[in-house]
């Protein structure tokens, strides 16, 4: 087994703990299909392609290097996966055919579990969205944007009013939640079972 690596430069959180050397494998196993992440050659095609790169604290490539180095905490804290817009540029361009976008999803899952971080705005948005879906079976954008923005961008609300009015009047969007789907019970059962399966 490899000796623990001491990584001194920032953004390190100190010496790498031994068990974290399995971090990369953990990410791979949690991603559906075979993401091929161990094959990364650090070429930077992903970081070069990423439209969100400037908003990320580490480029996707750097994140993959950090996974290899077992820097669990730094990765879990990073906003990188949360800034991913799922454009799939990196995925189709990666010379090693790594399923990068899928890996980003896995990292988001893991960062939520780890409790140390992630981007609260982003994860809250996902949570708000999903709570709607879990209750109604469908989502609706106005309600979602409303809840979400009140919580996170309260100062922005004034500048958003014209848009919101436009949405309601011009787009004819309803400010009320959608009708529940008929199979709501069925869906709830499925999701409950799925959550149990996810845990194992």
């Amino acid at each position, binding site marked *: 087994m490899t000796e623990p690596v001491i990584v001194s430069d920032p953004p390190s959180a100190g010496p790498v703990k031994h068990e974290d050397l399995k971090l990369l494998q953990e990410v791979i196993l949690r991603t559906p299909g075979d993401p091929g992440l161990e094959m990364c*050659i*650090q*070429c*930077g*095609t*992903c*970081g*070069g*392609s*990423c439209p969100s*790169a*400037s908003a990320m604290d*580490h*480029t996707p*490539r*750097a994140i993959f290097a950090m996974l290899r180095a077992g820097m669990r905490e730094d990765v879990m804290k990073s906003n990188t996966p949360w800034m991913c817009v799922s454009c799939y*540029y990196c995925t*189709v*361009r990666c*010379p*090693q*055919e790594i399923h990068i976008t899928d890996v980003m999803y896995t990292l988001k899952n893991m960062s939520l579990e780890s409790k140390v971080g992630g981007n609260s705005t982003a994860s809250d948005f996902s949570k708000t969205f999903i709570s709607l879906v879990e209750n109604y079976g469908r989502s609706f954008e106005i309600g979602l944007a409303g809840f979400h923005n009140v919580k996170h961008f309260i100062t922005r609300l004034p500048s958003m009013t014209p848009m919101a009015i436009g949405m309601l009047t011009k787009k004819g969007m309803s400010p009320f939640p959608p009708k529940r789907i008929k199979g709501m019970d069925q869906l709830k059962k499925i999701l409950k079972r799925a959550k149990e399966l996810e845990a194992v």
Partner: protein
Amino acid sequence: MSAEEKKPKERVGVYVCHCGTNIAGVVNVGEVSKWASDNLSDEGVVVARDYKFMCSSLGQELIQKDIKEQKLTRVVVAACSPHLHEKTFRNACKGADLNPYLCELVSIREQDSWVHTDKIAATEKAKAIISGGVARVIHHEPLEPLHVPIHPATLIVGGGIAGIQAALEIADAGFPVYLVEREPSIGGHMAQFDKTFPTLDCSACILTPKMVDVGNHKNITMLTYSEVQKVDGYVGNFAVTIKKRARYIKTEDCTGCGICWEKCPKKVIDDHFEAGLGYRKAVYTPFPQAVPKYPVIDDINCTYFVKGTCKACEKFCPTNAIDFNQKDEILTVEVGNIILATGWDLFDARRVPNYGYGRLANVFTNMEFERLSNSAGPTGGNIVLRDGKTTPKSVGIVHCVGSRDKNYNNYCSAICCMQSLKFAHLVHEKTGATVYNFYIDIRTPAKAYDEFYQRIIEEGTLFVRGKVAEITDAARNPGEEGKLIVQVEDTLVGKQRRIPVDMVILSAGLEPRYDSKALAKTFGISCSADGWFIERHPKLDPVATMTEGVYIAGCVQGPKDIPASVVQGAAAAARILGKIQQKEIALEPVRATINEEQCSGCRICNTLCPFNAILFHEDRMVSEVNPALCQGCGTCVAACPAGAIAGTGFSNEQILSQIDGLLLLNLNKKEAVPAVLPQV
């Protein structure tokens, strides 16, 4: 029948090699050899030994001593693959007056220790493999090799630098060479280049003298504008059918004065030699130093062939050398050996959509750049943008285009790092522009190559480590308007960068020739999944192929630079000269034979034979194996529905008893499977 009643008729010796730790590290060799002497004595094993290196002279002497003292009649060596050392051990037996074909080499390295980690299972597997070898070797017969004379002439296909080198070596040694080249002139890709790394000598200056030597050599017959259609025969005696395309020029009269192409009114974009950047006429030589000097008329574009009138060239030719009635010629030549040196094709950069080649005017390929930079090229050596006049102030050179990329070619093209460094120098020298090289890794492993890299750094080239993500003309920030923007992660900084430049050069990789698979089939050799031709051994026999008498040199075998191509050309020539000097060749007697009585004439075997060794007698409706062509691979034996084909060396008896031996059925007739199942 119990084992005791059967007295073994052969005396077999078993030799288990450690191969250092290659085998012994996984297989318990001591246990295996002891097992063999304890359990296989009923099969005839009288001695079983293990030894550190069976292939060493001490190891071989061990076998020879046993043959003499123990009166062995059969030998089984359990070691590496027969590809490597079958000859060694057969020769050892021969040295002790045992017919070499009574020795069987079974592989417990490639097929066992190298592919397993479970030591116990691997040891059991080694036992089974040896048991199979012993069961088989009992049925071997003494064989004598076939001797055939070698024709002294050599066919070389492809007149690039590799083919030229090989041709000169053989011809200088006094033997005849046929050099077949598809284009109107020999020279290959090297003729298109401006300067060559790492010494930066002008490509034409070092290539042209060699081309002229080829043209003037009394031992070389150049067949340009020609292609091989068919190959019959076998090592020492190939009969090669060549199609010589009509040039429409009487070469005996033409002086190469050039008046015809001067007068020809039909301009054609030259997408071959000028990489699409320049023009040629319908009657042309690809470049001024072409060898031979005679032009060809391109009958697809020539006005006379298209419309029926023109003949300007004929009118002006001072020696009446134009002949519109010439027809393609088919000729057959006899040769003893063949070298394939057909080189490479350039990766089509249009396949990478994010690099915009073909869409963005000022994105160029490396071959285009060679022509731009070449003083004999379309711009007279001026490095300019697609508009034909503007000199770029900043240039980005993109490494690894289409190479090291699973979406395209997964291998490294080997030459493009050096070529990109060369370009950086040329751009600097000729334009003073700012040059960026975008690379993943800089690969400069040969002599004087890394020094060249350092020289380029010193010249001020800006290196950015990152595979370019995209090249776009969509400006986003001030300063980007009207430029090409190279978007890349500078991985050493960890930030995405957008670098505006005037010109981008894509270092497209090397690919096998588009027709390489067909060519491989014509010559009965194999190519890898990529399409590169496969050598007999990647380290120890890089220019021979699995087909006797057919050699490969240069980029057909894989991407490489000019020095390495020259080395291979010379090496292939040396191999062939050695063969020619022997005057005759001993062929392996391991051959298939067809029983004419049993052959139903279904012809299934005819197409399956990878060496084209089976011919069909229409009159008698039976197939026959040409023993000199057959390589003893056994494909036909297995395929024949009538069971009419048998092989010396792989008779049914031999194969079936080897299988029985593998399953240890020879030891324990009750159980159908080995007592200890290998856990794999």
